[in-house]
């Protein structure tokens, strides 16, 4: 909502209150002023001039040489506008003036003739081009006779105005008008409101004899009123009115249309003027449109309507799309003489839907959508009639032809002082509270322990006690509400066990050198099929996706994380280690909501450690990813029952991917991207993992006890065995553990060798086994025996031989 500071003063006295102060006052009162526009800033030296003589430029057909009286001097100015030859009073920018767009006016010569300044058009003074009326475009401004030569032209035009741009909250539809804003200022400043003039002259004719109104669906059109104004003369509206419309962001058209818009801006009630003689009948019938019915709207577009739209008709064909836009067939045009003025209330939801469907959101539809002041409709019609009489020379017929009952709005809300103070934490007394209620224009009836407050019809947003408490608070000032602390019983706040574990997992991964990524939950149908941990099930899809890329909810994190790898690779960020934690979404047959499962994923490419002066670069490999997973599981308290086995998964390298199992259940996988897949996707060599987070978040063991430190020394034995290359390390390890008995404390694989010193198809695994007996010192002979058992067992079970 654009609010002119000058216009506002028609309704409330602002003397001694600057535009900035008004803005601050409104903002603090709940009408947030987003911006203060001063279109004229820095424009000095724009004055009213009178063309005393003019004639064509000898060397240029399209230019006129004007002699202009500027009060204190007379100047010769060359002008190219077509209306220059017959113009009288004009707006002149003197040399030295800086016009919008940093245009500096200088005394110059145009084709050998001197020109001392510029005669201005509206857009040159900073009026946005789409707010200049069609007639005014490319023309210099012609001022009325009362403009005083030499005086400040911006002031005369009202262009020295300050416009406050208010960002209205959706509940405050009452402030969609100058008067509504004025009411708030009146309450905030405690200054009276001045209501606009509506008394117009009387004529003998009655409107009721000239037109009838029939409303077919009362719910759609609770009230429809029509006034008739005869013998208007279509002309431009007065300059001051045009300038006020411009300040409000509306383009002047002609006096009749401008007046309806002016009254809408003033009161908030949209009005529509039909050409009475071209209406097509003398009856107004409002109804739902028929499916497929068409009409041509003011913007010359043919609109196909449906049964959800309300139309105004002449009994046969639509003449307006209710609340949204008038029809072209009975538009007010230059030759219009008699006006049918509509002042109505329409169902807000229908207007909203029609405006939205037809893409015709306008100042008018916006106001209907929000709901109107029931008592303002007829008032607005009378106000417009008054202005049409005054500025379009019309004569207003008696009465208003109506249909429907004006909805009676008699909202009464009870309120007690105690409720105000307990809710706000204030200590207001009865007198100051009543004072605030009066300033808001509310009726206050004392019921002893409480009040009965009657709410003016313009305030549709006030229905319950809390609404009134907010009204009191905002006029009293939110700033003056004290600062206190809740008095309720104290208790420790906390994170849940799951939240703590999630944080622990994050800290571990960050500490290990990974960067956390957050990607989008919505993805394409194709990507959602990749890297799924669960059996293929249908996608959870959005009904109206914005693009193919964001169509379904992800079922795994990796596809999006790989998008981030790609994004980075394209920016030459090559050494990457990313992780993400977040929800994936699986359909949940029979339930309304999908299952949301919490996953952890990681992706690595490039070098794990960069080359440095004292080390060579270490590229990421399968074991980088696996090491991170191992460490993560340990951090989460999963020290036992974790196994890995080679796995085949789509998109993964068949020889370099493993499933991760906890107690025999697959909880995730680790692997290298399949080279074919990586190449197709433009991805570098990348290792990934994805884990079912939920399966890893075990209850924190609060009974954990430390293991006493051994009092006897541990003994270490190293040996290497040669086995067939396809035998896995975990099989060998398993046999060692089994054979070593109870004294084995730890088995570490410290070397793996395949190559020229071995038979082809063989590999050597070197282990360090630690033995410990907590009760006593082990002797060498005991260890030698165990060692022998291990070697024998490896030989019998895996065909292994000790490597010499």
């Amino acid at each position, binding site marked *: 909502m654009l609010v002119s500071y000058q216009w506002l003063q028609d309704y409330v006295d602002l003397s001694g209150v600057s535009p900035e102060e008004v803005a601050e006052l409104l*903002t*603090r009162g*709940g009408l*947030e002023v*987003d911006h203060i526009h001063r279109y004229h800033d820095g424009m000095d030296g724009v004055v009213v001039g009178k063309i005393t003589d003019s004639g064509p430029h000898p060397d240029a057909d399209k230019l006129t040489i004007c002699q202009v009286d500027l009060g204190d001097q007379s100047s010769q100015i060359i002008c190219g506008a077509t209306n220059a030859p017959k113009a009288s009073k004009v707006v002149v920018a003197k040399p030295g003036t800086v016009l919008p767009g940093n245009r500096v006016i200088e005394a110059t010569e145009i084709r050998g003739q001197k020109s001392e300044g510029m005669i201005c058009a509206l857009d040159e003074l900073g009026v946005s081009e789409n707010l200049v009326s069609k007639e005014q475009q490319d023309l210099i401004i012609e001022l009325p006779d009362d403009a005083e030569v030499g005086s400040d032209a911006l002031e005369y035009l009202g262009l020295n105005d300050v416009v406050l741009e208010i960002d209205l909250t*959706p*509940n405050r539809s009452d402030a969609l008008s100058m008067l509504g804003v004025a009411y708030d200022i009146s309450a905030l400043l405690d200054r009276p409101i001045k209501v606009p003039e509506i008394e117009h002259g009387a004529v003998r004719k009655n409107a009721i004899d000239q037109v009838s109104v029939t409303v077919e669906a009362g719910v759609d059109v609770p009230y429809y009123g029509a006034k008739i104004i005869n013998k208007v003369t279509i002309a431009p509206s007065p300059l001051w009115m045009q300038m006020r419309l411009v300040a409000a962001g509306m383009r002047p058209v002609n006096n009749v249309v401008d007046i309806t818009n002016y009254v809408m801006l003033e009161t908030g009630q949209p009005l529509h003027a039909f050409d009475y003689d071209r209406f097509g009948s003398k009856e107004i019938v409002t109804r739902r449109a028929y499916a497929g019915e068409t009409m041509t709207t003011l913007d010359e577009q043919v609109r196909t309507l449906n049964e959800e739209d309300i139309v105004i008709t002449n009994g046969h064909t639509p003449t307006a799309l209710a609340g949204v836009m008038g029809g072209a067939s009975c538009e007010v045009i230059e030759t219009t003489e008699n006006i049918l003025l509509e002042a109505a209330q329409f169902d807000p939801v229908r207007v*909203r839907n029609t405006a*939205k469907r037809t893409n015709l959101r306008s100042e008018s539809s916006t106001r209907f959508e929000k709901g109107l002041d029931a008592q303002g409709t007829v008032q607005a019609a009378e106000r417009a009639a008054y202005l049409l009489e005054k500025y379009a020379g019309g004569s207003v017929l008696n009465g208003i032809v109506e249909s429907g009952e004006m909805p009676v709005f008699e909202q009464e809300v009870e309120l007690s002082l105690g409720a105000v103070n*307990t*809710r*706000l*934490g204030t200590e207001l007394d009865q007198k100051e509270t009543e004072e605030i209620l009066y300033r808001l224009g509310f009726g206050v009836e004392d019921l002893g322990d409480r009040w009965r407050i009657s709410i003016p019809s313009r305030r549709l947003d006030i229905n*319950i006690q*809390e609404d009134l408490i*907010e009204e009191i*608070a905002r006029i009293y000032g*939110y700033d003056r*509400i*004290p*600062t*206190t*602390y*809740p*008095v*309720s019983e*104290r*208790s420790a*706040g*906390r*994170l849940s066990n799951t939240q703590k574990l999630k944080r622990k997992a*994050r800290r571990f991964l960050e*500490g*290990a*050198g990974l*960067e*956390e*990524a*957050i*990607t*989008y*939950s*919505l993805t394409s149908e194709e990507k959602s099929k990749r890297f799924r941990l669960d059996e293929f099930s249908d996608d*959870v899809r*959005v*009904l*109206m996706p*914005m693009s193919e890329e964001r169509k379904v*909810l992800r079922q795994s994190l990796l596809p999006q994380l790989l998008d981030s790898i790609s*994004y*980075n690779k394209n920016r030459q960020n090559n050494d990457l*280690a990313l992780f993400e934690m*977040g*929800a994936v979404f699986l359909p949940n047959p029979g339930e*309304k909501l999908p299952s*949301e499962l919490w996953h952890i994923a990681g992706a690595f490419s490039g070098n794990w450690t960069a080359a*440095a*002066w*004292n*080390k060579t670069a270490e590229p990421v490999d399968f074991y980088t990813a696996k090491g991170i997973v191992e460490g993560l599981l340990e951090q989460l308290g999963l020290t036992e029952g974790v196994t890995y086995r080679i796995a085949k998964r789509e998109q993964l390298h068949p020889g370099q991917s493993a499933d991760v199992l906890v107690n025999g259940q697959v909880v995730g996988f680790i692997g290298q991207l399949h080279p074919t897949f990586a190449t197709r996707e433009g991805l570098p060599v990348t290792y990934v993992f994805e884990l079912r987070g939920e399966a890893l978040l075990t209850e924190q063991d609060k009974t954990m006890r430390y293991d006493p430190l051994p009092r006897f020394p541990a003994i270490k034995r190293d040996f290497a065995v040669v086995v067939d290359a396809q035998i896995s390390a975990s099989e060998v390890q398993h046999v060692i553990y089994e054979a070593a008995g109870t004294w084995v404390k730890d088995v570490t694989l410290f070397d793996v060798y395949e190559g020229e010193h071995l038979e082809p198809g063989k590999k050597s695994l070197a282990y360090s086994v630690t033995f410990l007996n907590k009760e006593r010192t082990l002797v060498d002979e005991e260890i030698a025996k165990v060692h022998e058992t291990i070697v024998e067992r490896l030989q019998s079970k895996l065909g292994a031989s000790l490597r010499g």
Partner: protein
Amino acid sequence: MIDRLEELKLEAQSAVTSSQDKKELEQVRINYLGKKGPITEVLRGMGKLSAEERPVVGQKANEVREAIQASIDSKQAFFEEAELQEKLSAEKIDVTLPGKKVEAGSPHPLTAVVEQIEDIFVGLGFEVTEGPEVELDYYNFEMMNLPADHPARDMQDSFYVSEDTLLRTQTSPVQARTLQAAKGEGPVRIICPGKVYRRDEDDATHSHQFMQIEGLYVDKHVRMSDLKGVFDTFVKEYFGSNRAIRLRPSYFPFTEPSAEIDVNCGVCGGDGCRVCKQSGWIEVLGSGMVHPRVLEMNGFDPNVYSGFAFGMGVERFAMLKYGIDDIRHFYTNDTRFLSQFKHV
């Protein structure tokens, strides 16, 4: 004999002094103190001496031996010290060369902000609660006092997945879920961080996916002045002790009275600058007293209980705190961006 010993002592000490290294010194030791050395010889020839002379010469011989040994020891120590110095100096390195750095990763800035805010509220006695990202219309809108024909419920603005389920447009449904689970018994003190979704085109200031933190404090006798107190504490904790808040009337369907909370601009200190659009204040979150209908619909008696609720945009907080100018940075995961948040 005595004279001979004295002579030997001087001779030996001179040899010690002139020895150049440990090897020469050892040779000196062998020459004078060794089994075949002159002192041993002197001692061996003692048998020829008289009983009176013998102890005198024996004592002298021991004295001379000890003196020579002392000279050798001292010279030996000198050589060892010199050797050590030489070794240390040979081991000198360039300490300005880079170390074997342990490279840590970084939290995502949005996670960092969420955790910072969680920690402050946990300190104020709140619990952290989460809710589903795909939500029932019922919790997302209806229970938050947004009835069916409310403009905010437009299909165009939300990602519906069925007629009555959608990707939540706000974290507020967690309020309804928590209140209903509390079955009318306060206090309820929660904050709910999470992802939310709206049908916006992605650009520098809009994102179809973003994060919010919702908060709710419901108990008997909760006042709007308490809301002010809690946020005064929060803002000083989060943005710094020199920051202040102001409350402005606003509107949310689920609170009444409602308030927008502004923080004085950290760039200009309140004088007005480009960042705060000359106002000196920056809007940081929406809040208000829980609407009695919301309490009632979710099983709390509004005549007994009252409370305040608030909601903040995590991206906005991160952008304000770290001066980030494009919301898309949060979701492209450029490591040049992410790695800047190591120390937060």
